């Protein structure tokens, strides 16, 4: 169970938000909305432990994530708005390495299967710099298929994805939730998932 209590964030001189509260139990997801600059990314980065909150705390299974450290990171998968994809490496290498870094060893066949499912069949061995923006996004998202934790923190996942990829992302999140996963999704579009336990958090500008 992931709990967020009285969270506040200050960036520079500006207060982005204060008193944000929510909790997620298995199978639950939260849609994070708000205009540009309202602090969606900052909130996600705080939930991931990349950013220290100005006040409040994030608790995972009852313990503050800042004391849990690495133990929490095994349960967490963060996809930021930038694609953590190396230009010089192929999608296959990128995926295997990023899984290797998270402590999962996957074979070439497993990686190729995941990339195929993300619609990159036949392009697994191209250097990422030759891929389009949407294909790079797909390649970065393939990690969710192979080596993901219980909590997904997804920042603008649908940007530069086409219709089929958006549908695919929806079904991926639905599957993840049905397996007892949790997700926090920052997005401008409505996701309309077929999952009933759903919360919505709107950050004001």
């Amino acid at each position, binding site marked *: 169970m992931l709990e967020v209590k009285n969270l506040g964030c200050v960036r520079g001189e500006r207060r982005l938000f204060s008193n944000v509260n929510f909790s997620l139990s298995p199978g639950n997801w939260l849609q994070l909305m708000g205009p540009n600059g309202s602090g969606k990314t900052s909130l996600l980065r705080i939930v*991931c*432990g*990349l*950013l*220290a909150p100005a006040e409040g705390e994030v608790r995972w299974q009852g313990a503050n994530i800042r004391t849990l450290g*690495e*133990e929490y*990171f*095994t349960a*967490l998968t*963060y996809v*930021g708005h*930038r*694609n*953590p*994809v*190396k*230009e*010089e*490496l192929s999608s296959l*290498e990128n995926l295997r*390495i*990023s899984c*290797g*870094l*998270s*402590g999962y060893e996957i074979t070439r066949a497993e990686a190729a299967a995941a990339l195929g499912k993300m619609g990159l069949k036949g392009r697994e061995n191209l250097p990422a710099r030759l891929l389009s923006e949407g294909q790079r996004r797909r390649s970065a998202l393939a990690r969710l298929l192979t080596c993901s934790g219980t909590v997904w923190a997804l920042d603008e996942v649908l940007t530069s994805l086409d219709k089929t990829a958006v549908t695919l992302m929806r079904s991926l999140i639905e599957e993840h939730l049905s397996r007892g996963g949790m997700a926090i999704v920052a997005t401008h579009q409505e996701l309309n998932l077929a999952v009933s336990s759903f919360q919505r958090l709107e950050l004001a500008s």
Partner: protein
Amino acid sequence: MFRWIVARDLILAWRRRADVLSTLFFFVIVVSLFPLGIGPEMQLLRSIAPGVVWVAALLASMLSLSRVFANDYQDGTLEQMLLTPQPLYLVVLGKVLAQWLVAEVPLVLMAPLLGVQFDLEPNTLLILFVSVLLGTPILSLIGSIGAALTLGLRGGGVLIALLILPLYIPVLVFGAGAVDASIIGANPAANLYLLGAILVFSLVFAPWATSAALRISLE
């Protein structure tokens, strides 16, 4: 996980060979300019050799250091590394090891060859090799702190030099000192032991400081 980091950085370095070669050529050219400029005055060349080779090694490693974390910072892969379930200490150690293998080992191998230009004895060349071998990992380790602190800053390259070069002074003094001692026929062991001690010390503390610096830079 550790080997994935090292393997990844080695593959990336291989695909960006030009970066690696530019550091090596910088080192070779700077060291070679001195004998060409001074002319065949053997006595003078022999006495400036340790200082010249070591200063060139410091400057060459500054060149490659600014890139240790900068690329990963820009494309967001550094963020992912901070979220791996292993201690950040190991991640940093892996990246520093890869940087040393890629950027510093060629300097280590090239140093004795360049020493020949300064008319150094074979025995002295060996000491030069050993001192550079012990000293360059320290440069990578200490340099990584500066690279992490200056991430995302404009003019980071110059700032790293200002932050880190003063910290390199002990390495320069003992490294060049070992070679100096060997030239005048004294025992260089004391200098080499001190280099070894600094290496062990920075191996323990530098990755820890770099991890803290990375967390601050990524906030």
